[in-house]
C-alpha cells in the first residue's frame, strides 16, 4: 500500500510543472501543422478542384457572370484537412500555422471571399488534374451548395 503510493508520488513529482501559462506564454505548433488555409488569389485559376474535394463542403464556387468566378470559403466549417492545398494545381492554397481563429464577431468574420477573373473560360474542368478518379469534378463548371433533395420525384419539398 505505502510503497505503491510512494511509487505513484515519485512518478508524479519527477516531471515537475509541465503546464504552460498558455495565453501569456504562446506555444507554437509543430512543422507540418495544418492551420488556417490561406488562399493566394493571385495564383488561383478558379478551377474548382478545392471545392470538389472539400469534405466539409466549406468552399463554394459561384459564377457571377461570364468573366468572374467567386470563391467563397466558409471557414467556420473548415476541418483543416488540407485536401484543398493537396489538389490545388497552382499551389495557391497553403496551410499556415495559425490556429487561434475563434472570433466574437459573428459568422461573417469566418467567411473569406475572392473573385477570380476567368477571361473566356469554357468551364470544361480540364485545368484541374484530379489526383485519382475518385476526386474528379462532379459538376464541371459550376458548383454551389444546393444539393438535390432526394431526387426529382421525391415527395418532400425543399426547405
Amino acid at each position, binding site marked *: 500500500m505505502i510503497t505503491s*503510493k510512494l511509487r*505513484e*508520488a515519485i512518478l*508524479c*513529482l519527477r*516531471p*515537475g*510543472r*509541465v*503546464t*504552460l*501559462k498558455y495565453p501569456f506564454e504562446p506555444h507554437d505548433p509543430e512543422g507540418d501543422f495544418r492551420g488556417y488555409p490561406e488562399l493566394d488569389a493571385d495564383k488561383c485559376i478558379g478551377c474548382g478542384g478545392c471545392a470538389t474535394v472539400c469534405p466539409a463542403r466549406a468552399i463554394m464556387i459561384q459564377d457571377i457572370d461570364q468573366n468572374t468566378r467567386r470563391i467563397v470559403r466558409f471557414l467556420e466549417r473548415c476541418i483543416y484537412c488540407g485536401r484543398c492545398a493537396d489538389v490545388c494545381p497552382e499551389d495557391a492554397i497553403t496551410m499556415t500555422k495559425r490556429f487561434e481563429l475563434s472570433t466574437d464577431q459573428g459568422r461573417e468574420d469566418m467567411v473569406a471571399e475572392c473573385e477570380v477573373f476567368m477571361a473566356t473560360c469554357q468551364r470544361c474542368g480540364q485545368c484541374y488534374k484530379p489526383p485519382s478518379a475518385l476526386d474528379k469534378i462532379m459538376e464541371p463548371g459550376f458548383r454551389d451548395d444546393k444539393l438535390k433533395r432526394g431526387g426529382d420525384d421525391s415527395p418532400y419539398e425543399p426547405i
Partner: protein
Amino acid sequence: MTFAINIGMALFIGPLVAGIVRKMVRARVHSRQGPPIIQPFYDLFKLLGKEDLESSPSLLLRYAPLVAFAAILAAALLTPMGLRPPLGGYGDMIVFAYLITIAAVAVMMAGLICASPYSMVGASRELMMHLVVEPVLIICLVTATIKSGSLLMWDMAGWNYVNGLSISMVVAGIALFLALQAQVGKLPFDIPEAETEIMGGPFIELSGPKLALFQWAFFARQIVYASVLAAIFIPWGIKFIFPWNVAAHLLKIIVLIVLVGLIDVVNPRLKINQAMKYFFGVIAVALIAMVLALLGL
C-alpha cells in the same frame, strides 16, 4: 482578542490553507501550475455575488447554510487555538461535539429539503459518514478526559502539556488523524459530495451565497478539526508566550492540513460501505487508546 484570533483563524486561515494545499500540494502532484493561493477567496466572493437559484424554496433551506456556518464558528470559539478558547468557560467537549454535529445536520437538512435524488443520496451518505466518524472524535476526547479528569478542552491540552505524552494519547492522536481525512471531507472520504457520482450530493441544488457559506464553513471546519488534534494531542508549544503560541499552533495545523492534502491527492474515492468498514477499524484503534488510558498508560 482571543475571539478575534479564533474567528480569524477559522474564517481567513481556513481558505488560505486550502489555497496553499491546492497550489503547493495538489497542483504540484498533478504536475501543473495550479490556481493562485488566494483563489478560494476569489471563489467565495464570486459565489457570494452570484444568482441564488432555488429549486425548492423553503425557509429551512435558506437558513441551513447560515446554521452550518454559525455552528462551525461557534465550535471554533470553543476550540483551543494556541490560546485559551474565548468561550472555553461556557462549553466543554460534549458541547463542542454537538456543535460540530449541528453543522453536519445542516448539510443533511439542505440535502433532504432539496429532495433531488442526488441530494438525498448525498444526505444519506453524509449521515452514515457522520455516524462512523464522529465516534472516533468522541472516543479520543474521552481518552483525554480520562487522563486529565476534565471535560474542558483547554484543561486537557494543559494537562497533556504538563504531564507529557502518554501511550494512550499517542494512539488516540493517531486514531484522530486517521479520522481527520473524513472529518474535513477529503478523498478518499469525500463520499457525500462525490462529484463524479452524485454531482455534489447535498449541494447539488445550492448556488450563490448558500454554496459560498457552506464552502466557507467547510474551510473553517478544516481548521477546527485540525486544531483539536493539534492542541490536545500534540500539545507542543501551547505554553509559549503570545504570539509564539499562536504561531506554533498555526504551524501545526498547516502541517496537518498539508498532510491531509497529500493523502487526498493519492487516493481514489472509496464506497460508503468500504469507508464504514475502515472507520470501524479506526474506532477500534481509538477504543484501544481508551482502554490504555483506563489502565493508566
